[in-house]
């Protein structure tokens, strides 16, 4: 919202500089985001009367003027010729400045003719975008008059961010009230007095409101015999810097009052209203209307329209329509000044995606008391700018709601502010805000809440008024005495540990957005029906919520390899979503790696593969104290059927690790192997150990035997290791695989597994005989269960 400071000063005549005003109202909660100075570059431009007009002898497109500047004659060349002898124009003499040019003006020679400065278009004075014509000043302006002062091109402009609870600040008057409260300078409200003719409005027009809930108040005034012309320059300049386009004196008068009082108004051409009637009604389902922006819009029975006896002439509170618009031929104007229910305006404006100066105010909540004064103010301005007669007895349907009264206990205010605040001080605050108050017998202060302060509903709202007008800077500072222990919730503490564990796996953390594209779901083999759909996605890439962290990780791998990174090993911890009867949200930890496992010397030259994924997994689970997990080969998309496994612990599935199916990797534009794992954070947390014990650290040395078995190719090493443990019973302390080979001299289909086995008893050193017996048991069980032969020697 742009507020012209010179306008503000009309309603609250303070002499403080603009930045000082801004500072004070900011401290009270008015968010002045920026102080603009559109006319900083304007100085020395004066009014001048054209006394001669000649064609330029050497250039068709230039015209020469001789000007009476009040202090002498001047000669200028101009590129447009919309002016005549006798017109008064803005003249920028040599040495003066205009906002549109960086440098002061000088004397130039244009095609052989000297030009002393220039005459200005509205664009050059920063009062309009129009640079197709020279600005014509009122003909009675004396030459030599300072143009900036004449049109009010002085002072700053505030750009104010409006919060949804303070629609009253969407007007010069609303901000002026805050300036008054902040400075103590009394408010000077705009003049709403109007001279009315004897003819009453009711004799020429009628208003019927068929939905009093959506339109609790409708005020109509009629102004007859107007002459539609441009509005005064000063008003046009104010509208322009506030962001509105000047149109005509009648339309500009309504916009002027909109900016000044915050009340949207709409002028209709009375003669174009069928039956000279206004009917406020719901739209018919499917009713079409062409709004003033030349767009045909289809309405629903939810929408409220302004109509006459035959047709809709506007969408209530949002935008008017062409059939009853004021134009140059209009002579009689019906002025609408109404109050519409905010929720209805919001729904219509959102559905039509049509947000206007009017709808923005109505949807936040206008002042139900203002339609009357605003109609009077606008009628006054129209009479002043366009001539015409303001008819008497304005039509007023509905009623002004009674103001409610709210009580504030000074003791409660003192409690919130942690400082004593007396009843007098409380009343002083509301005095400054222009609100009447009185002290009750109970010592409370009762405040009469004006209609424009829709945000004041409970005592605490009044306490905020006291706090903000006194200033938050005055608040004392202390810390609460907290009688409960702070710290980390279990899930939060575990997640920290989990990330540490990921670090030990040699992984780098990354983050990805929480969305998934259909391609991401396809990569994981997930059905779109089982994924959570975003109802209002910005683009197709964000059509779903992610079902897995893996697509994001793989995308990141590809990005790094594309950028000439040799390899990457990344992890993410985050939420995933799916539909299983209802929306299910769970947390995952996942990692992925691709490229050379080691970037250079020293080290083995090889690509990341399933064993790197498993190694990282082992490091992660080890760091979390998750023990006794085992793996089972897995065959489902998108995993490599021979190089992936599920990770299980008891009945719980912790997740999976392995390589992506080569086809899945190719689909993701990855040239080589992609090793990855994805784990369920809740399951990890259930199985993580939170305690450690050193009670059973072994005191006796182990007896170490290397046992090599020849077994069938398809026998998993873990199966043999398990058999060793089972057969050796309590005496087997550790089983470490140290060798795997096949081929010569072994027969086809057989492989050798070499295990280093530590036998140990907690309470004694084992004898050779005990160990030999255990080895025999191991040999027999492995032979019996998987047909393995123990190789000797």
């Amino acid at each position: 919202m742009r507020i012209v400071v010179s306008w503000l000063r009309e309603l609250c005549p303070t002499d403080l500089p603009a930045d000082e005003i801004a500072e004070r109202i900011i401290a009270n909660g008015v968010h002045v985001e920026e102080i603009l100075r559109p006319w900083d570059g304007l100085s020395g431009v004066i009014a001048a009367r054209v006394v001669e007009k000649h064609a330029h002898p050497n250039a068709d497109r230039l015209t020469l003027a001789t000007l009476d500047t009040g202090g002498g004659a001047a000669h200028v060349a101009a590129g447009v010729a919309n002016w005549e002898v006798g017109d008064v124009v803005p003249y920028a003499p040599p040495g003066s400045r205009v906002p549109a040019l960086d440098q002061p003006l000088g004397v130039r020679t244009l095609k052989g003719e000297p030009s002393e400065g220039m005459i200005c278009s509205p664009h050059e004075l920063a009062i309009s975008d129009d640079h197709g014509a020279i600005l014509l000043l009122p003909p009675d302006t004396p030459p030599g008059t300072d143009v900036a002062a004449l049109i009010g091109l002085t002072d700053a402009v505030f750009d104010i961010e409006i919060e949804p609870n303070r629609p009253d600040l969407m007007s010069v008057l609303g901000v002026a009230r805050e300036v008054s409260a902040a400075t103590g300078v009394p408010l000077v409200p705009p003049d709403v007095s109007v001279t009315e003719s004897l003819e009453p409005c009711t004799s020429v027009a009628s208003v019927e409101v068929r939905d009093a809930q959506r339109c609790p108040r409708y005020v109509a005034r009629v102004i007859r015999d107007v002459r539609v012309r441009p509005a005064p320059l000063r008003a046009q300049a104010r509208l322009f810097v506030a962001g509105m386009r000047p149109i005509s004196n009648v339309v500009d008068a309504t916009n002027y009052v909109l900016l000044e009082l915050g009340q949207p108004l709409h002028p209709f051409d009375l003669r174009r209203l069928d039956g000279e009637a206004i009917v406020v009604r719901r739209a018919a389902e499917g009713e079409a209307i062409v709004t003033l922006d030349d767009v045909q819009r289809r309405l629903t029975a939810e929408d409220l329209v302004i109509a006459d006896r035959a047709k809709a002439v506007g969408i209530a509170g949002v935008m008017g329509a062409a059939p009853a618009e004021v134009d140059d031929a209009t002579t009689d104007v019906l002025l609408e000044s109404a109050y519409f229910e905010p929720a209805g305006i919001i729904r219509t404006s959102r559905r039509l995606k049509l947000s206007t100066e009017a709808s923005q105010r109505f949807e936040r909540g206008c002042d139900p008391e203002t339609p009357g004064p605003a109609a009077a103010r606008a009628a006054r301005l129209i009479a002043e700018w366009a001539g015409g007669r303001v008819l008497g007895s304005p039509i007023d349907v509905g009623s002004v709601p009674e103001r409610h009264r709210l009580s504030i206990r000074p003791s409660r205010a003192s409690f919130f502010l942690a400082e004593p605040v007396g009843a007098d001080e409380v009343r002083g605050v509301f005095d400054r805000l222009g609100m009447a108050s009185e002290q009750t017998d109970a010592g409370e202060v009762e405040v009469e809440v004006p209609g424009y302060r829709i945000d004041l509903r409970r005592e605490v709202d009044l306490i905020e008024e006291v706090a903000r007008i006194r200033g938050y800077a005055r608040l004392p500072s202390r810390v609460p005495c907290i009688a409960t222990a702070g710290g980390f919730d279990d899930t939060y503490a575990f997640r920290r540990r989990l990330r540490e564990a990921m670090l030990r796996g040699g992984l780098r953390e990354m983050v990805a957005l929480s969305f998934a594209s259909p391609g991401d779901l396809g990569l994981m083999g997930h059905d779109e029906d089982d994924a959570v759909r975003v109802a209002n996605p910005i683009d197709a890439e964000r059509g779903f919520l992610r079902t897995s962290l893996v697509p994001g990780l793989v995308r990141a791998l590809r990005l790094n390899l594309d950028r000439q990174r040799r390899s990457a090993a990344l992890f993410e911890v985050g939420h995933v979503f799916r539909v299983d009867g209802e929306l299910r949200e769970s947390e995952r930890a996942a990692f992925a790696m691709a490229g050379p496992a080691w970037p250079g010397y020293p080290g083995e030259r090889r690509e990341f593969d399933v064993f790197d994924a498993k190694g990282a997994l082992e490091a992660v689970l080890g760091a979390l104290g998750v023990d006794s997990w085992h793996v089972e080969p897995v065959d489902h998309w998108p995993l490599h059927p021979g190089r992936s496994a599920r990770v299980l612990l008891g009945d719980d599935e912790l997740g999976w690790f392995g390589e992506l199916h080569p086809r899945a990797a190719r689909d993701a534009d990855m040239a080589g192997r992609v090793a990855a794992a994805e784990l369920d954070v809740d399951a990890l947390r259930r199985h993580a150990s939170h305690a450690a014990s050193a009670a059973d650290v072994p005191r006796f040395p182990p007896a170490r035997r290397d046992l090599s078995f020849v077994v069938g190719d398809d026998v998993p090493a873990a199966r043999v290791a398990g058999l060793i443990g089972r057969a050796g019973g309590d005496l087997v302390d550790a089983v470490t695989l140290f060798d795997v080979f096949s081929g010569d001299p072994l027969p086809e289909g057989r492989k050798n597994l070499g295990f280093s086995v530590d036998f140990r008893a907690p309470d004694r050193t084992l004898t050779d005989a005990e160990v030999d017996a255990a080895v025999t048991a191991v040999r027999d069980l492995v032979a019996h269960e998987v047909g393995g032969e123990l190789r000797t020697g």
Partner: protein
Amino acid sequence: MTGPNVDALLQTLDRELERGRGLVADARTLEQVEAAEVSVLGRKSALADVGRSMAPLSEDARRQVGRRANEVRGQLTEAVAGRRRDLEAESERASLQADRVDVTLPGHRPRPGSLHPFTLMEREIADVLARMGFRIVEGPEAETEWHNFDALNIPPDHPARTMMDTIFLDAPGDRTVLRTHTSPMQIRTMEAQPPPVYIAVPGRVYRNEDVTAKNMPVFHQIEGLAVDEGITLADLKGTLETFFRALLGEDTNIRMTPSFFPFVEPGAQVEVTCFVCAGAGCATCGRTGWIELMGAGMVHPAVLENVGYDPDRFTGFAFGGGYDRLSMIRFGIPDIRMLWDSDVRFLERFEGLA
């Protein structure tokens, strides 16, 4: 049989000393030293023979020969030991020489991990709040409209709700929005327990926005909530001062100005002394010396009523703000997209903070 001649024995000893020194000096290997040692000091050596042949001598003569024999033995023993030391040292030198490497070659380094700057920032913040007595909790990202809006005093069709760019979900059940702030956890926590409540909530939040250099549809917030008997605006101010001083440095000041959030009243926006220029004014703070980091205020009585707390007995404060911008300033990150890009060249910069 003639008895031993003292002079002859002494001559033998001198000869053996001479011979032994020669053998030891000529030894080129530890084996040759060993052989020399056996030859001159062993049981079959001339020196040993001299010892054995002394018995018939007079006491004087025995003493004379014995002393000399001990001297010779001592000198030869020393010569052998010295030669052995020399050869051992030489051998060690040779083996060390053979073992030399180029120490400028890279080390066998375990693959390094690193944490994301969002995590690092979140940890700093959560650590401070936990030390101050807040319990760090988390909540779901897919929320009900009740928790995200209604319970927080943001009714349907309220501009504060319609202006929020919410991401809506199309899924069975009542969790139909991605939370637009971490504030729903205020409600979830209060619904689950009676006062006093002192919690802080870090986490992801969502807005339906395009990706730009300054905005992402996903960002991170920290939320704080204190509800107890006797909580006032002064407690809010003091808590924020303590928090920001611990996080950003003891010289940090805060500035609260009135502002509107539907779930607090009175409400405030919170600015802190710019920690890039220490308040002098720079590009980061838009030359104001202040950086806006949070919204805050006293918990709205309607919110307390919505969770069944008695607003006459209990009051509270809440504060909340994004920390993505804080991470960007702290780590000198010029474009927010870098945080989401997963480029290892970016991620590895944070290795030292893991």
